């Protein structure tokens, strides 16, 4: 192996440096969630757990409220986008239909469009139609940009399902719905779960499109953006750190159980 490229040690050493670099702002954000700061959370003033315990009391709970809005929007947009996207993914892999190229293009374009254009476009449509901006318009926007990512993620999974399993179900007189819920859906589930997690992550962290379509509704990223000018309270770091730790533990468990399973399979 060491014959190829870069030398034996150079690459691993580079890897360590690169990962450290990638993780620096994360470590910084987490460390400063424990900072005994007063107003703005810029210089280190000592260690405290207080910010974690009083996170919902800061600024009359506005940080927590913004976080709550982000979670609600994320969940609804995820359910909508995952449902619509999974249906499209199944159709793309399993069926023949006209205008296939047009559908592919329609799915690809939202991913190739800068967020600021998606945001301004929807906002100008809502403006022209006289729709007031609120939670609903944010959910509409988030669902829109999540669909394509769901299709990409689920498509790979649909393509990996052996169709003879579904045929067997039909041969045993299963109705189309029974075949879907008892065979197709369980087999698709890992892909659907990955797509749902991706949608939620995209929605939860979206700022640019949200900023154009939210009116006076606060989401967590919008709260951070607005407070950036006057100094961000440590409560924001607490919430970001909590979300990070939750997500990273979840993903690590999924990854390691996958790797362990692959290892166990390789042994047989």
């Amino acid at each position, binding site marked *: 192996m060491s*014959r190829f*490229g*870069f030398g034996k040690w150079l690459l691993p050493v*580079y*890897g360590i440096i*690169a*990962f450290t670099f*990638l993780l620096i*702002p994360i470590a910084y*954000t987490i460390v400063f969630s424990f900072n005994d700061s007063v107003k703005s959370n810029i210089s280190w003033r000592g260690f405290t757990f207080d910010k974690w315990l009083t996170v919902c009391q800061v600024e009359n709970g506005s940080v927590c409220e913004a976080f709550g809005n982000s979670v609600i929007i994320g969940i609804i947009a995820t359910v909508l986008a995952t449902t*619509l*996207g999974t*249906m*499209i993914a*199944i*159709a793309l892999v*399993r*069926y023949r*239909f006209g205008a296939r190229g047009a559908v592919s293009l*329609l799915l*690809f*374009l*939202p991913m*190739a*469009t*800068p967020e*600021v*254009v*998606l945001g*301004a*476009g*929807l906002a*100008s*449509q809502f403006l022209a139609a006289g729709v007031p901006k609120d939670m609903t318009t944010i959910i509409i*926007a988030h*669902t829109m940009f999540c669909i394509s990512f769901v299709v*990409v993620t689920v498509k*790979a999974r649909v*393509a*990996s399902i052996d169709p003879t399993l579904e045929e067997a179900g039909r041969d045993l007189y299963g109705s189309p719905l029974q075949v879907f819920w008892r065979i197709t859906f369980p087999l698709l589930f*890992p892909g659907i779960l990955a797509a749902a*997690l991706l949608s939620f*992550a995209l929605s939860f*962290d979206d*700022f*640019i499109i949200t*900023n*154009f379509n939210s009116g006076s509704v606060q989401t967590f990223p919008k709260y951070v953006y607005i407070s*950036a*000018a006057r100094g*961000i309270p440590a409560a924001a770091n607490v919430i970001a750190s909590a*979300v*990070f730790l939750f997500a990273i533990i979840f*993903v*690590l468990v999924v*990854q390691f159980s*996958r*790797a362990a399973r*692959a*290892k166990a399979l390789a042994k047989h």
Partner: protein
Amino acid sequence: MAFAAFTAADVVVRTPRKKSPVALLLLLPGVLYLVLFFLAPLVSLFFTALQVPHLDGDIGQYDYGFNWANYTDVIRMYLPHILRSFGYAIIATVIALLFSYPLAYLIGVKARSRPMLQGLMLVLVIAPFFISFLLRTLAWKQILADESLIITSLKALSLLAPDAHFTGTPAAVIFGLAYNFIPFMTLPLYTSLERLDLRYLEAGSDLYANPFTVFRKITVPLSMPGIIAGTLLTFIPAAGDYVNASKDFLGAPDTQMIGNVIETNFLVLQNYPAAAALSIILMAVILIIVGVYVKRLGTEDLL
């Protein structure tokens, strides 16, 4: 994209595709949704860009018209911002590619025999996604502020002029753009390099090619789909970004990009036609670039 990389290893079972009305039922809701909330807004943007100010109207009141001069006006006013956006985005994309390629090679090729380590490294690559985009950008702003440890030490070592700043400069904005979109670059590169058949490299060196030639003539061409996908996924959001360049983050008034101008015109000045015209220009330039790529690959492969 992040999670797509995890499922990419699934085995593909080729099945003959059927023709059935079920396909239509499956497609219709999602396609209709995208037509209503993706295509229609683009059309609305197109017509907004041609609006004329309402006679004796308040700020933000416009009538539909065909005022093509809006385009020449915004180009005249904001040409530096437009050029700056694409300039910054190109440099940031190149930096992200140079940073990510060895990393993706390490994960996709060197760590192939160790699935646990490979999984851990993939999680580390996407870890920045799990912490707020805005907060990690602000973290860099504080880590690299004038009074920070890094900048003061660099000044003490005379590696930086005593009166030099980092935050608020074009370099800081480009740095932020590159950092924030590195995972979008690394993951597609990893997916490509994961599939690289090492026997080709062996054949190359058996034929007395030196490691550099093997890399240039075999590894790079075989990982081209990853390079193309990664550069697109980095360049597009970088060109339209306005967080990094904002003065409250890593930028200053003279680093404003096209995204900042669109935001200000739409949300602050309520000059909707200008914001719409700039959006159409941004979209058009990106579509031309994407079009060149799609011509090479086809949309099915990019999806």
